[in-house]
């Protein structure tokens, strides 16, 4: 499964949900039209996407919040799994792109690459749902059902390495926090 095609399946189901993206998923997300509306990019603090998404989910319980995390990124705030589970945020859907490397810095393997099981960690932390997919057809079939069940949910997306360098969209709002807050509360 390629990251781009997995994100395409996800983007098609975003609807009026709010997304929080991080790192190399950001350019794809814009290219798919899932940003900049109802979206927050996390670029300045690796590992922060899940906690940023948790805050939004708690403040906007009527909306689905979709966090697109990375494996190396999530490991920088791994404790967020228990905070998310403990919050019981039923509108929180956590997607982790698992490619086993720190892509932007030159593809160094993450600790326990190929061994670590993010879905199992999420389940162990107390997420209501946790899955791992490496087949795009299965992801496409299962994702609507996952969204129909309450979160917190984790979906680990096992993807192939992708060394294509994409630029971040120039349409990206400069004041992302203010832009999204204005969309949500006026």
């Amino acid at each position, binding site marked *: 499964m390629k990251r781009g095609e997995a994100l395409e399946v996800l983007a098609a189901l975003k609807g009026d949900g709010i997304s929080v993206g991080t790192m190399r998923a950001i350019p794809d997300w814009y290219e798919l039209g899932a940003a900049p509306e109802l979206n927050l990019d996390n670029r300045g*603090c690796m590992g922060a996407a899940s906690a940023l998404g948790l*805050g939004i989910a708690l403040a906007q319980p009527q909306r689905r919040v979709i966090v697109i995390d990375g494996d190396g990124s999530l490991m920088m705030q791994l*404790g*967020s799994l228990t*905070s998310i589970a403990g919050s019981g945020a039923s509108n929180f859907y956590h997607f982790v792109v698992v490619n086993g490397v720190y892509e932007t810095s030159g593809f160094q393997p993450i600790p326990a690459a190929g061994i670590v099981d993010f879905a199992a960690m999420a389940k162990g932390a107390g997420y209501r749902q946790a899955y791992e997919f490496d087949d795009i057809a299965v992801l496409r079939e299962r994702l609507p059902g996952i969204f129909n069940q309450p979160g917190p949910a984790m979906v680990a997306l096992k993807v192939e390495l992708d060394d294509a360098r994409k630029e971040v969209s120039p349409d990206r709002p400069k004041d992302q*926090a203010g832009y999204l807050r204005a969309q949500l509360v006026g």
Partner: protein
Amino acid sequence: MTSETDTKGIVESIPAAVLHGAISALGVSHVLIVPDTHQKTLLASLVQDSNLQMLTLSTEDEAICVNAGLWIGGAEPLVIIQNVGLFAAINALRGVAIDMKVPTCLIVGQFGRDVSKRVEDNVPTGVRLLEPVLQAMEVPFYRLDFAADVSVLRTAFERSRAERCPVVVLIGAPTS
């Protein structure tokens, strides 16, 4: 950036009820905590308050990020942590609270402070180095060393909103 209360060299233990009352008067929606021994009486008081939504987080950097998400979503959160936790959260303070321009009001206990000495004369680095670090990061801070000065909580909270930045209130002595 400087502290805006005078250093008097002596601090007093502020009753939890005084701080709790001041926090309630701010109209905050959520109180985010990573437990702090220095403020344990305040935390014990707050958890009894059914009007506040309390959330305990795993780390202080996470608390700063959840604060950001809540504010973006329209809520008005407040963060209560410990001095050493703020050191642990410096990247989130920089990359989220400062760079994303998020109102972030942090009440920070000066855990380990020798209350017989001025902050500058304290040996523990967790106490003595915090203000210089905040100054280096251009984060405004206020010392709250006396119950009579509790209004700085409102000053800090409102400043964080007005300037969309992090503002820290340092609790000098263990709360009572």
